[in-house]
């Protein structure tokens, strides 16, 4: 573990993480509850307090490590857990979706739990190609995009099944559109972070590796949806189908390529395969 000692000084370490994490998650949960109950003040105050407490731990780690805590997997997960409620809060402040804070709190909790229960990953094997400050932002941004686009696809599916006779309401479509915009924004950032990282790791920002090819496909598919929705006259069911189709393509990019014959042995993205 990263316990740095300077003579006579107490230093922050992972030992103290659990206390900060519990308090922060409790605040985030209170914020999520406030959002469900339409108590916006509670939602904001509690979420911000949780963020401050969590960020306090990150800053203490930073000081104690004498470097930014972005090197190990455990350290990157700290940032995941911090950014998720922050992103949730931004989305909430903009569109007041009741469920977004619960969603971001649960995701943050998952990463906190991994840090708590799998601490051995903190400084254990991370192959050299993955040891990069880009690793965390690239992956977390993509995971957030996948989560938000998953929520949009779910709403589209419900819209298609449940409302087969009725028209889906404008406000429902507005929520779907906003989710797609947020998801697409993160998809774009994840892809471009990946390009910047690839330049540092492999010498080129875009090599049409199977993963990159499918990332481009996914990105383009969501662009089709976003542009189709700008048409003055449109087939709403077709729009929802485009969204579901895009999410299917996203699955291909996420894990489907591991089973794709054309991608076998050619992708440099297969770190978790038996090597």
């Amino acid at each position: 573990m990263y316990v740095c000692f300077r003579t006579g000084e107490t230093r922050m370490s992972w030992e103290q993480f659990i206390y900060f994490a519990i308090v922060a998650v409790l605040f985030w949960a209170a914020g999520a509850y406030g959002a469900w109950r339409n108590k916006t003040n509670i939602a904001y105050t509690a979420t911000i307090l949780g963020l401050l407490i969590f960020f306090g731990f990150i800053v203490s780690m930073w000081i104690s490590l004498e470097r930014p805590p972005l090197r190990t997997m455990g350290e990157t997960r700290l940032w995941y857990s911090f950014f998720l409620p922050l992103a949730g809060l931004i989305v909430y402040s903009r569109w007041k979706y009741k469920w977004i804070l619960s969603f971001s709190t649960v995701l943050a909790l998952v990463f906190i739990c991994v840090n708590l229960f799998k601490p051995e990953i903190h400084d254990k094997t991370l192959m050299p190609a993955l040891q990069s400050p880009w690793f965390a932002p690239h992956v977390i941004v993509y995971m957030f995009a996948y989560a938000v686009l998953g929520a949009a696809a779910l709403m589209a599916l419900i819209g298609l099944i449940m409302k087969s006779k009725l028209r889906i309401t404008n406000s429902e479509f507005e929520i779907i559109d906003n989710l797609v915009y947020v998801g697409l924004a993160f998809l774009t950032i994840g892809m471009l972070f990946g390009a910047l990282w690839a330049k540092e790791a492999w010498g080129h920002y875009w090599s049409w590796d199977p993963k990159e090819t499918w990332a481009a496909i996914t990105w383009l598919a969501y662009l089709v949806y976003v542009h189709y929705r700008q048409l003055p006259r449109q087939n709403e069911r077709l729009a929802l189908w485009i969204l579901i189709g895009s999410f299917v393509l996203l699955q291909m990019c996420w894990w489907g390529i591991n089973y794709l014959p054309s991608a076998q042995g050619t992708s440099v993205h297969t770190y978790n395969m038996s090597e």
Partner: protein
Amino acid sequence: MWNKPWTMKEGFLTGGGLIIAGMALELSAGPVVWEAFAWPVNGIVLAGFLMLIAVMFLLRKKVYAFQFIGTYQAAIPAMVYAVVLTIIMGLTRQEVGGTWLNNMLTFWPFVLIYVYITVILGVITLKRLCVLPYHGHIRNIAFLLNHLGLFLALTTATLGNADMQRVKMICGIGEPEWRALEPDGTVKEMPLAIELKRFIMETYSDGSPKRFASEIQILTKTKKNIETVVDVNKPYEVDGWKIYQYGYDTQMGAQSQISILELVSDPWLPLVYTGIYMMLAGAVCMFVLGRGKRV
């Protein structure tokens, strides 16, 4: 059909026409030879391309097709074609020297559809730039960051590719090396020499690799004398060359007496990065602004 205003139907027919034209080109002229675009050809092509877009934009009131290019009804079918062709690319094994679907990047229909998308991007960028002085809304700025950024990244990455040099240098301990191997195996003299001081390989307790690095000394023709360490993920840049840790003598492992470095020069990189940073800023705007209210 072809009655004004044109719809998505005409958009799909235009894209289909490009694919047929691409097939004809593929059959008659063979695949796209990207190597032919090395400087100054790529500079000339880019200038011509920009002029073509400017002319299309200026004549949009006179030529209906040029007006149509700046509409959603043109853009959406173009993107659908790009999705389909890229899916085919993702499902087929891509090979250097492959033909047709096995080498999509040199397949004319694929290239033409992406060029078409780039033309659309150029025209709509100019359209939006014209309204900016009157409606300098954040949404218009976001639109430009996204579309102009993508336009810049696509054009400069594609045209600049022929000027990119990627060579491998096999450095031995105590022997300054100034020759490098091109991808085709030919030897190239470099403007810099690299001497390996020490190859570093660290492993975790389970034997899996933890770190590959090379302590090197670099001497350049510009009289620089640098001692540095090149790690995986931490290349060193000197005189426009990025130096990467690429490989080592796997038989010898940590005792390897050589280190293989990759040297990459990409003079168009700043332009591509400008496009990428614009798109990043555009994506942040997209996140903050969202869909907006329907008008």
